[in-house]
């Protein structure tokens, strides 16, 4: 496969590219969905092709083909160079590439149990059991279980001499139970909304014990129908780990993408409230806030060996003791910003242009724990599991909804409340972080559906988080 990638690079160079790289990607994906004890869909997908990227002046040209012949790869390289040259009619400043070590290497995700070797029927049977348990709870109208697995081989070659092979394995899933009332639906999900995904094999699914949690989750969904609404007000907000992980994803992870900061995503994904002049002086949040982008975390969903332009996976400080100190970058964006490239450029398949993506952007654990945080809270609300998320194009004004919440009064967990929402502005919100749980409750939550780019690309990202508390947050926003 290296030969195929090499042919694509040679095609681009022969057509005048100043730099070129190519990825041959062979991937397979399996998705299984069961609803109410019936298989809903069983899907397999195999995608294979070569994508080649050529740089001429200020623009990347990219061409991809599913034809895996050398002639097609060489032609794709030639077309990528022609496309980059066409960009010169609307030119910009030169796009320099930051230097990175040129390596020949390989990487494989550690895993115990090949998820594709586990029979589909075993997976379906497990999900049927889970939905059966959930449906055994009176009031559950819908119970759904999902599993997805990815096995990806990538061969990367650059005109500078990189030759890197990677084999990545990702696994995960989850289930949800819904109770339908006269004019409302209440849903509970496990391990988090959209499921929990990690790098690794089928052992990651077994670890979360879906059947053992199905009854509790279903009971909570039914109980929500008769629970009162969360009242509007300002109070201490305690976030369960997976919701805090999404908060990090949306209000930190996207804001620190250097391509957004440079304006490259202005029309679609948006820009950022951050600007480089404030790097190392801007206070992002309270001193409890320590965020890293760490693509080396074992088992986390955003873990790999090398990014899709051949830069080695690394850990980069993003927020240190509340101070903004780092960004997510690639070779072009880092060079323009005068920073070291962070190895954070990835593509969604052979047919997409690599772009800046989150790796594992997570918050380091604190020194408390959830029980202690609740005991320390006089008037608050504890929210769990995301239901809705919305944030503006600069990543400032957000509103999140969760599936379930409990009031916290005088240090004790109180009654369950439904339709909990909270809203805030990014720097003010993070400044209010005043309690953070420790390593025992620290989980590498995975987000398998991060959309960005045109054409749209979906990335798999990781966000390590433990429960945390925020002072005086506006909660209970409704229509």
């Amino acid at each position, binding site marked *: 496969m290296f030969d195929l990638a090499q042919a694509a690079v040679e095609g681009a160079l022969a057509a005048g590219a100043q730099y070129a790289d190519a990825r041959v990607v062979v991937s397979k994906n399996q998705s299984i969905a069961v609803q109410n004890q019936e298989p809903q869909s069983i899907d397999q997908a*195999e995608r294979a092709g070569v994508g080649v990227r050529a740089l001429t002046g200020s623009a990347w040209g990219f061409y991809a083909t599913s034809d895996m012949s050398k002639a097609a790869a060489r032609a794709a390289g030639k077309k990528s160079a022609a496309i980059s040259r066409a960009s010169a*009619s609307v030119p910009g400043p030169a796009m320099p590439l930051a230097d990175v070590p040129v390596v020949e290497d390989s990487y494989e995700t550690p895993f115990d149990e090949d998820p594709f070797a586990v029979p589909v029927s075993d997976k379906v049977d497990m999900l049927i059991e889970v939905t059966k348990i959930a449906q055994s709870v009176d009031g559950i109208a819908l119970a759904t279980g999902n599993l997805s697995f990815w096995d990806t081989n990538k061969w990367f070659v650059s005109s500078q001499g990189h030759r890197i092979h990677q084999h990545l394995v990702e696994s995960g899933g989850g289930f949800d139970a819904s109770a339908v009332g006269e004019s409302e639906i209440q849903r509970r999900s496990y391990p988090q909304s959209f499921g929990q995904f990690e790098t690794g094999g089928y052992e990651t699914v077994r670890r979360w014990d879906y059947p053992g949690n199905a009854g509790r989750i279903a009971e909570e969904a039914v109980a929500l129908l008769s629970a009162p609404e969360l009242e509007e007000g300002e109070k201490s907000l305690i976030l369960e780990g997976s919701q805090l992980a999404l908060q990090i994803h949306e209000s930190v992870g996207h804001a620190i993408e250097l391509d957004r900061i440079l304006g490259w995503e202005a029309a679609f994904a948006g820009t950022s409230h951050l600007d480089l002049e404030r790097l190392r002086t801007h206070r992002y949040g309270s001193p409890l806030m320590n965020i890293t982008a760490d693509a080396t975390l074992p088992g986390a969903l955003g873990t790999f060996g090398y990014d899709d332009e051949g830069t080695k996976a690394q850990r980069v400080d993003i927020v240190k003791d509340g101070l903004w100190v780092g960004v997510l970058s690639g070779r072009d964006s880092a060079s323009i910003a005068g920073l070291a490239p962070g190895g954070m450029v990835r593509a969604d398949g052979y047919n997409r242009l690599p772009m800046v993506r989150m790796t594992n952007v997570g918050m380091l654990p604190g020194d408390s724990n959830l029980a202690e945080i609740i005991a320390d809270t006089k008037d608050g609300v504890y929210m769990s599991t995301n239901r809705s998320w919305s944030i503006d194009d600069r990543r400032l004004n957000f509103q999140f909804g969760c599936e379930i919440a409990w009031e916290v009064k005088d240090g004790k967990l109180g009654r369950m409340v439904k339709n909990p929402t909270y809203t805030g502005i990014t720097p003010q919100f993070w400044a209010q972080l005043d309690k953070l749980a420790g390593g025992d409750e620290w989980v590498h939550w995975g987000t398998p559906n991060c959309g960005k780019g045109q054409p749209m690309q979906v990335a798999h990202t990781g966000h390590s988080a433990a429960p945390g508390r925020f002072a005086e947050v506006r909660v209970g*926003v409704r229509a």
Partner: protein
Amino acid sequence: MSRTIEIAGQILDHIGDRADAEVVVSGGESALTRFANSFIHQNVAEEGHEVLLRVAVDGRVNSAATTNLEGIEDFVDDTIGIASLQRVDESWPGVTEPMDIVDPHHFDDATAEANPDERARVVAGFVSAAPDLLAAGYCETMGHDVAFVNTEGHRAFGHYTRATVDGIHQASGTAGSGHGTSPRLGDLDGSDIGALAADRARRGLDAFDLKPGEYQVVLAPEAVATIAMFLSFYGFNGKSHAEGQSFAELGEKQFDASINLYDDVHDPRALGIGFDAEGTPHRRLDLITAGVTKAVAHDRRTAKKAGVASTGHGSPGSEVYGPLPTNVFLEEGSTAVDDMIAGVDRGLYVATFNYCRVLDPKALTVTGLTRNGTFIIENGKITGGVTNLRFTQSFVEALAQGRVSAIGNDARFADSEFGPGMMHVPSLQLDAWNFTGGAAG
């Protein structure tokens, strides 16, 4: 003969009588030229074929996709082999009987063959519409063939093109958007679309923070496209409806009498092909007529459960997400947008909604933000820009009887933030919209 038909036929031959099967083969080229900071920075294209295969072996169902045409026989054998080990799918509706397909003719040779220089010229037009502002956006062209065959002897072929220009111009602290989509690149004038974006950006200079609350609104087609998309995907979705998760109550007057919403690939302005992923012909589907909810979309699976015929809205993944109307038209009215604005004493003109998410699917309560053009209307005139606002609003309630003041005469394709070419809608003047937060939270 299209290569897609040839591949589909080969696959069907290899399946033989081992399974009930449907095969969809698509192929073609897509290209997208992207610009930011007023220059082209990313420029991409791809070619290839993809095969979607769904088989049922004695009611045991499995679906698979591949781009690997070299290993197609192994792919077919594996797909059948996995199916045969599954449980019987009691909801399997079988494959489509042979039916007549009408080609809507939404294909343009020049667009299918458009090259990067042609896309760059459109981009240059957009950018040069305001050389003093910063432009960002994209120009996309695509041309695809789609062949469908199944083991019942049903055959269908279609091809379509799509061209889109979408972008913003940015001035200090503000931005304005412009959009155009058509089957023909030649219909799109980058300069005109860029001029609209620049005008909105300049009008938004010196924007101020407005106190949140309920305001009358005039919504541009982009904002209305978001409403139409949420109504269609969450409400007029046969699966959501069957599961009790949709607002739709068939036969009930749930909307203002002026609202007519339908799905129709055969409208001359539409995009796409004449059949769905199950080979069912597309035909016009009235969703709302004079404010009355008339129908929801079905694929074969949801149609079987509901005891009706498929409306031709099957797609890869519709088993999970449900059948979705994607050729949606909100019938235009007769009011010019300037007259709508003139009819508002104090309210807001909103160009685009952004990052909208459902809080309550039954009421279709959605939260989101305004973006790329939010303006205060005072005494019938736009008097300045306001900073982006957050709203929390039931989309069904917003269009309820008596709340739609006027419907624009400016219907066009507008991007709903979930992709171009799906929602063809005019501007709307609505009595009330609930803004729940501003720049300060």
